[in-house]
């Protein structure tokens, strides 16, 4: 099995999954705490729109997807605030708009729908070194952000109004968190696909939350579980020859069931 790691795409895949596994669940914690779960559907559909646009205009789908998601998040946050409407409702609206626009692009520019929908299951082994470096840098930014703003984030997740009255700039912090979520979702889609990204993003924080007594514990627990699922799932996929995304999701799900049963015993 180890000789496979001498193959550059496999090695890159392992490196990227390890980075993503240890760092992406941080934004999963953010998603939970800010009750932004509907937003991730918007981002998934936004990624399909980005993919369709990239194929239509023959530009880099990786960066286009990220850009589209960032724009969607900015629109969502701005609209939600100005209309004083729940972010979940607004993201549902943008989700529908995104997918409709995606199909308009697919139809009008004769984009093969099959190529666009490959985003739904990711393509871990086609990453360039630039993309690997980009994901690595993003992982560092994510960890740095969490560390530097840990106190403000704790206040934001505990109660936004209390954070505001304590002098914390909760509004900008909220936007920053939402932007990080957007980038993470776009990257996770690229790595393991839209349908399975929850295994990397959400299952680790859920498992970590079973025993955590603090945000710090939840973040560290999520990162450890995420890293284990990513690396373990990757090795499992090589060992039994199944797609990496499926093995990560399967491993995370089995771990979730076992831990859940132990907890409720």
């Amino acid at each position, binding site marked *: 099995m180890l000789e496979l790691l001498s193959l550059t795409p496999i090695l890159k895949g392992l490196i990227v999954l390890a980075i993503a596994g240890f760092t992406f669940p941080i934004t999963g914690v953010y998603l939970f705490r800010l009750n932004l779960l509907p937003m991730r559907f918007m981002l998934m559909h936004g990624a399909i729109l980005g993919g369709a646009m990239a194929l239509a205009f023959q530009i880099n789908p990786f960066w286009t997807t990220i850009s589209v998601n960032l724009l969607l998040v900015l629109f969502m946050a701005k609209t939600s605030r100005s209309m004083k409407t729940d972010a979940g409702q607004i993201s549902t609206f943008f989700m529908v708009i995104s997918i409709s626009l995606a199909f308009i692009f697919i139809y009008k520019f004769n984009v093969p729908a099959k190529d666009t929908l490959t985003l739904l299951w990711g393509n871990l082994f086609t990453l360039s070194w630039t993309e690997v470096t980009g994901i690595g840098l993003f992982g560092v930014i994510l960890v740095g952000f969490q560390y530097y703003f840990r106190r403000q984030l704790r*206040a934001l997740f*505990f109660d936004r109004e209390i954070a505001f009255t*304590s002098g914390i*700039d909760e509004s900008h912090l909220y936007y920053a968190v939402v932007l990080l979520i957007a980038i993470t979702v776009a990257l996770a889609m690229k790595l393991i696909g839209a349908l399975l990204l929850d295994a990397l993003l959400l299952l680790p924080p859920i498992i970590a939350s079973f025993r955590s007594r603090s*945000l710090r*514990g939840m973040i560290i627990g999520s990162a450890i579980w995420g890293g284990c699922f990513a690396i373990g799932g990757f090795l499992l996929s090589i060992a039994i020859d199944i797609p990496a995304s499926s093995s990560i999701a399967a491993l995370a799900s089995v771990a979730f069931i076992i831990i859940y049963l132990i907890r409720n015993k």
Partner: protein
Amino acid sequence: MEHSLIVKLKAQTVFSSDQHWLYPLFELEDYLKQSDTIASDLFLSDKIAGKAAACLIVFLGIKKCHIELLSERAIPVFEANGITFTYEHLVDHIQCRTEDLITDKMSISDAYLFLRKRAGRVQGLSVKLENVSVRIDEKLVIDHLHLDLGRGEQLIIHGANGAGKTTLLRTMLGFIPIAEGTIKIGDYLVGSDLWKQNRSIIGYVHQENINNNFPISSGEVVQIGLGKSRISKSETEYRIEVAMRRTGSFHLFKQPYHTLSGGEKQRVSLARCLCQNARVFLLDEPTSFLDQQGKEDLLILLSELSLNEAPSMILVSHDLQWIEQLKWPRKELKGGRLC
């Protein structure tokens, strides 16, 4: 320099002050808080003392004193509280407006708090609402409301459900825009850039969200009060401990916040406001989820806070039985106005 106040412990001077009016006695209070000296062991010599000074001397716990010029009005205060005193000259009254303002109905604690406010030694800031109107979904909820609360004063706002009590508090916090009028907290105009930079002067205790099960310890909740200030770890720990001890919640430091009882949560929330160094406390229905014991504990805690830190406090509640016991001034919010 000749001192107006000299305090001795076994013939040795341990404190002196050359300030005027009642300030030497307040300085003595600070000294006593910082030192291990027992006030009843001290002997105090003052140039002049009226009823106000007598009340302060009693409050500080001094048992023996000598006054050069003593007002007759001070004597009943000393006698009623077992103070051993001597004097050189006795006068009907001293030329001080403050002495006239201390009424016989005031307890020593009431007089102390009154004098602190008069001396500007309260943490609280004034709260001034002028002609404030607030609309929510086109409905006028607050209608040209006026409110003037002095530094370190307390006020209970009561009224029926839906009268706009919470809206009023949230407007003061800047959560709800004002349709008309102005709100000033101290010198800060709510909504201004200066206020945005200093909005932590208001501590907010809202109705407890019972669904909030975020994994956070009580100590971490109190730490939120420090906002984005970057202070050393030891200073952080010190400020949290002091605030939690003040509200009798330090033993809950490591406990997950969501496992606390309603009363314990209120203690932790008030500690958060103290840690924040808030100078105005806004409390929204603080008894909502409290049992009888919790309500009694909160009553004591708020009374202690108003006496010691003396922040300005506005409390909204519809629990008439409970607010009756708090004995703070009350106003009813009716038709969008206070009456």
